[in-house]
């Protein structure tokens, strides 16, 4: 049973109403007000509930040549332990001999436990507007829901974890491309915004905490759930850089940098995003 499930109530009706309400004001002059209104109307409800439930089903369904479910996948807190796992990822996994984030870990479990070839999944890890959601998105939503209210504690005990933090910090400040942008261009100052969108300062505990705990998020403007990996890919696109690959080291390094900076924040994903 999902944590959001028992609150679902009249959600379908509300979601439809919101879609109708939001459509004409997509380019309204003050987005923040509109989205604040939407959040208020939704209260504890969140359209991500459907994605979470789909994720739970995918987690529990036997698949692949080995015909097993992902239920024995070790997300870092022991095989089969889902609760709170997202608050402690990325982390070093002895079996993979690598630091992995939730997306890389899921792909690893699909390959090792289920015996699946994830190459098809990597062709389109994130959905486009108007698509059905992807398997990866649903699974991340399910795991995030089970980490709701957990305290962020991305580990730094293993040398590989420390190395990932250091690399993440370097990449965060790495300026490149025709526009000379780095992550720091937008995310190293406090109380700034791009157009009307507030920009978290990811070098601070408060800013990193806000960002880390709110992904995956349900993007109201897109009508779909988006993962941290998707967010990184979009940031890279806006930096005019090539495309970040899902579960890749640089993405994991950046998530480690953000997650360690976010220590002590409380998970609130899947949250509602603009």
């Amino acid at each position, binding site marked *: 049973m999902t944590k959001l499930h028992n609150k679902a109530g009249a959600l379908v009706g509300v979601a439809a109403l919101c879609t109708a309400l939001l459509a004409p004001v997509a380019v309204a002059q003050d987005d923040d007000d509109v989205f604040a209104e939407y959040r208020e109307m939704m209260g504890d409800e969140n359209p991500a509930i459907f994605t979470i439930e789909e994720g739970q089903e995918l987690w529990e369904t036997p698949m692949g040549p080995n015909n097993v479910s992902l239920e024995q996948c070790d997300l870092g807190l022991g095989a089969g332990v889902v609760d709170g796992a997202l608050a402690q990822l990325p982390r070093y996994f002895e079996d993979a001999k690598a630091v992995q984030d939730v997306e890389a870990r899921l792909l690893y479990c699909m390959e090792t436990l289920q015996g699946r070839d*994830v190459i098809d999944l*990597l062709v389109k890890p994130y959905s486009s507007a108007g698509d059905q959601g992807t398997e990866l998105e649903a699974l991340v939503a399910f795991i995030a829901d089970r980490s709701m209210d957990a305290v962020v504690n991305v580990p730094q005990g293993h040398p590989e974890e420390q190395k990932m933090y250091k690399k993440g910090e370097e990449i965060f400040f790495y300026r*490149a491309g*025709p526009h*000379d942008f780095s992550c720091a*261009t937008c995310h190293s100052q406090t109380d*700034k915004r*791009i*157009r009307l969108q507030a920009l978290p300062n990811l070098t601070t505990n408060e800013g990193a905490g806000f960002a880390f705990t709110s992904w995956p998020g349900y993007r109201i403007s897109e009508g779909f759930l988006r993962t941290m990996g998707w967010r990184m890919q979009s940031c890279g696109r806006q930096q005019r850089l*090539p495309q970040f690959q899902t579960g890749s080291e640089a993405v994991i390094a950046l998530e480690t940098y953000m997650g360690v900076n976010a220590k002590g924040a409380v998970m609130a994903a899947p949250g509602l995003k603009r």
Partner: protein
Amino acid sequence: MKTLVKVFLLPVIAVGVLAGCETKQVAAPAAEATAKDMLVSSMKAKNQATMDRLNQDELQVACSNAANSGGDAAAVEALRKAAEASVVYPADGNFLGDWKNGNAIAANGKGLQWNDNPSEPNGGNCYACHQLDPNEVAYGTLGPSLTNYGMRGQSEMMLKYTWAKIYNPHVYNVCSHMPRFGAQKILTEQQMKDIMALLLDPNSPVNQ
């Protein structure tokens, strides 16, 4: 574990194996990937966003640090001089285009991303970071407000200062966050003239 190991995790696994069992030994420094190595192994070229975009020029190297400093005084001066030398002023001596076109360019955030059409002109995306026309409320705050910029007048000094600031802002602020719209050929000369008019024309909404 097939694709993922091959594509992304092989270096990490290699390091892990080298480090050996039960030892605290860390891999030799020579084996350690740089931030760029990690980006190269983690990204793929897509459409116009090719892998060579990860290569840094001198300025990008100097400004890729938390202090955003550019280095010691001599290094900063060298970068500033190089930036100054990069600026090409309009051949016809005319700095001011059409503010209406300028406002459209300032509002356009497209260009050079892998999902942009390369046959369409790039935008300047000025509103992402600056306030300009006071009637446009969706402006960002990473850069200073430029509303009423035209009060500074149109002296040759102002024209050249503003042009250089758009062309290569590192002339004045060595690790400025702002793109080098001229030096990196993000905008054309005519587009920069139109942005100049948006800032300096007394009839531009910026100056109303």
